[in-house]
């Protein structure tokens, strides 16, 4: 991905294409696309929607970043879902069980979540390194196991308590909460949104300025060249999965420490899968992922307005799905076109001369065929 155009064009094309697709779908089903779009845009100004979008985007951002770390070296950590949920319930239990000064309490809870996520991600990593088990298979299965583990942990006779018809962990004391920035009836921005920003910047620095990031990208691009360059593939798999898992572990923290203070059996799930879509959309780039997360959150939150104008809000799901599908295709097409263009450009700038190969007019050199055998 060389040029800025090469980076921006695919997602723009994909979004335009899926918008077109949705328009057609709406028209076929007899709804009015224009009023739908207008309703979604005006919805942003309503009540706490704008703040909700940012809060939600922060959560998506973490999930997508977790996926992107794996993607950088062609590891498909589809287990972000399980990792974040196990981490969330563990952190909630720990947070409710300890009593520490304000601030420190929250730090301990956050670290617990990161460590738990990393440990849960270590399982597929170790399986891959030692037994060559594909991480997609093992982490999907671990997602299913995670659901069972959570159900077990928040039983009343374990660490849970019954609240009406719901069941969840004990409430984290106030010293473990992370306050937000209140905008009155416009909602409250999670304090951890700023942590998310820091992690995003850290991710960029790691990928672009550190040896580790370089080795990660090199392994992703060409495992053979990376190995010849002294990159230890197995170590990279382990570290990348641990980091991916640690970030995944943080996914539920903004909501847990900023709003819910308990992990319920009904707490939101599915962020891990959303993260995959957003990582694809943002091409693993921290800025791209941020835009993708905001777009996703916008579609989610303002879709609620669609029912008011007689447009089924499921159209948003169609749009999200078609964005992901078309962005994958668009990236590949643009990549090929760009590479070809660059080859041509290099050829032109070097002045392709009519004769000889490559550097035509080469210095007379000693060269013979490989003799006889």
């Amino acid at each position, binding site marked *: 991905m060389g040029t800025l155009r090469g980076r921006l064009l695919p997602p723009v094309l994909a979004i335009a294409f899926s918008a077109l697709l949705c328009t057609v779908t709406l028209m076929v089903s007899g709804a009015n696309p224009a009023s739908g779009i207008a309703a979604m845009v005006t919805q942003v100004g309503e009540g706490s929607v704008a703040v909700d979008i940012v809060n939600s985007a922060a959560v998506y951002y973490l999930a997508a970043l977790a996926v992107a770390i794996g993607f950088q070296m062609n590891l498909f950590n589809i287990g972000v879902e399980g990792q974040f949920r196990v981490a969330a319930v563990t952190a909630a239990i720990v947070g409710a069980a300890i009593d520490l000064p304000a601030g420190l309490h929250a730090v301990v809870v956050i670290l617990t979540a990161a460590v738990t996520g990393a440990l849960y991600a270590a399982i597929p990593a170790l399986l891959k390194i030692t037994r060559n088990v594909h991480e997609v298979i093992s982490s999907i299965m671990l997602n299913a196991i995670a659901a069972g583990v959570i159900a077990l942990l928040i039983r009343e006779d374990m660490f849970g308590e019954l609240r009406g018809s719901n069941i969840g962990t004990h409430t984290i004391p106030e010293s473990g909460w992370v306050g937000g920035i209140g905008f009155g009836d416009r909602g409250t921005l999670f304090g951890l949104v700023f942590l998310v920003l820091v992690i995003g910047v850290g991710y960029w620095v790691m990928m672009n300025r550190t*040896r580790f990031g370089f080795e990660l990208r090199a392994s992703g691009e060409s495992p053979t060249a990376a190995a010849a360059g002294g990159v230890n593939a197995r170590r990279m798999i382990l570290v990348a999965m641990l980091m991916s898992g640690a970030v995944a572990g943080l996914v539920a923290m903004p909501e847990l420490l900023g709003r819910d203070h308990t992990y319920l059996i009904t707490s939101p799930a599915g962020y891990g899968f959303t993260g995959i879509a957003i990582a694809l959309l943002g091409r693993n780039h921290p800025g791209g992922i941020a835009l993708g997360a905001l777009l996703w959150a916008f579609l989610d939150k303002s879709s609620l307005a669609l029912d008011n104008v007689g447009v089924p809000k499921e159209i948003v799901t169609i749009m999200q799905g078609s964005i992901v599908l078309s962005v994958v295709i668009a990236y590949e097409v643009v990549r090929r076109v760009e590479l070809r263009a660059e080859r041509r450009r290099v*050829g032109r700038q070097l002045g392709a001369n009519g004769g000889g190969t490559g550097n035509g007019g080469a210095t007379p050199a000693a060269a013979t065929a490989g003799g006889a055998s």
Partner: protein
Amino acid sequence: MTTTHPGGDSAVVLAGITKRFPGVVANRDVHLTVRRGEVHALCGENGAGKSTLMKILYGMQQPDEGTIEVHGEQVRFRSPADAIAAGIGMVHQHFMLADNLTVLENVVLGAEHLHGIGGRARRRIAELGRQTGFGIDPDAVVEQLGVADRQRVEILKVLYRGARIVILDEPTAVLVPQEVEELFVSVRSMREQGYTFLFISHKLDEVRSIADSITVIRRGTTVGTADPRTVSNRQLAEMMVGSELPSPETRESTVTDRPVLELRSLSLRSADGLRDLLHDVDLVVRAGEIVGIAGVEGNGQTELVEAVMGMRRITSGQVLLSGRDLTRAGTLARREAGIGYVPEDRHRHGLLLTQPLWANRVLGYQTRRPVARRGGWLDIDGARRDTERIVREFDVRTPGIEVAAAALSGGNQQKLIIGRELSGDPAVLVASHPTRGVDVGAQALIWEQIKDARAAGLAVLLVSADLDELIGLSDTIKVMLRGRLVADADPRTVTPEELGAAMTGAGAHERGDTGNDERGHGAAEGGER
């Protein structure tokens, strides 16, 4: 299938073929006439444009100019399917077989419409087997076959699809001498039955032994034809390289008595534990010395290099660098200790193709100045500056250091790699086919740089299939056969012919007695296969 009448007796006529790639003219005004029922050899050095020409004839590439006639009729191939329909088949250098299927299944795969997949197909394969003299069990699973048998399956595939004109792309590169002879027996008997062969090779002795006529291609264009009965290797070689005659070296020994790279009884077993890929290899490379490894490809050179680089775990033995034991060190530690590495396949092992040139400068050096700082930080500015230096000093033709490595031509990619691997102030350079597939200009420059580094005290382990390169550059030559070093040769006196003979185990140069002994081993092992 056209038989005798139109177009006289020529099977293939290529006239005025020109093919341009961005920045490179791969073929220029090529003329080639192949008579029906002959074995026609196409000779040229690496990078001369043989493969592109054959891809054009096989429909994988379309020529920009020129015409193709097959059996007297002008044709335009848009894809290999068209070429196959016209009776042309190609056996690629790298086999394209499904290992987990049987011979029958591999042959029939994709050609089910011809004779079905049952009894008729089986009978047709048996018939072809009789015609060609290939005794292969159609129910054998391909993964259990040796290289020579796999090649036969590839040829069967081509014949099964109705080819009467068969292109063999460097068919002997992967074979040991006995297998080469067997292949030639089959080719000769098929020629008697009216098949036409286009035989691509740069091995002159083989070409002279099998071909009825020879066309030489140099720097993208055909420079003439020769009669194999009268032409000598020397004459052919001169045609292949033109007037730029080989004198790769003005020799002036810079060899010191300080050992840099020492290998002590290095052994490596294959993954299935059945064969020794390397057997008791002892080797010393001294400062200022270039040790060349000669051998037919596939005799353990790749494994030797990867064992030295720590990319393969050796079964037993020791690797020492300036007396320091690196046997248990990983690839990065070995590189940091001062081993530079020019891999044989620059795309697979040398470059990150989509990354800019400066990122490629970092590869393998991610822990060292000037491209990295302490504490795991990269020094991007340092990497950019040093890449600029390499581009300048090694004459890498590129518009800038931000272009992706994939956009450069092969020769320029290779110059970048050589520049990189000579930058870390290495104690030893492990160079595998350093000028394979690069143009002559880049070749001269790469040789010059290696010689300069040697004069400055660099130890070089050079693996090459280009015997003139080996003889020209090396201070000592070791011959490798079946994973062993079987003979030594003195590059001041040895000829490519003698070296070639030693490589096939047919007679070792110098060190006569031991050489003969070792040949005995080689032959015995050959019998086991």
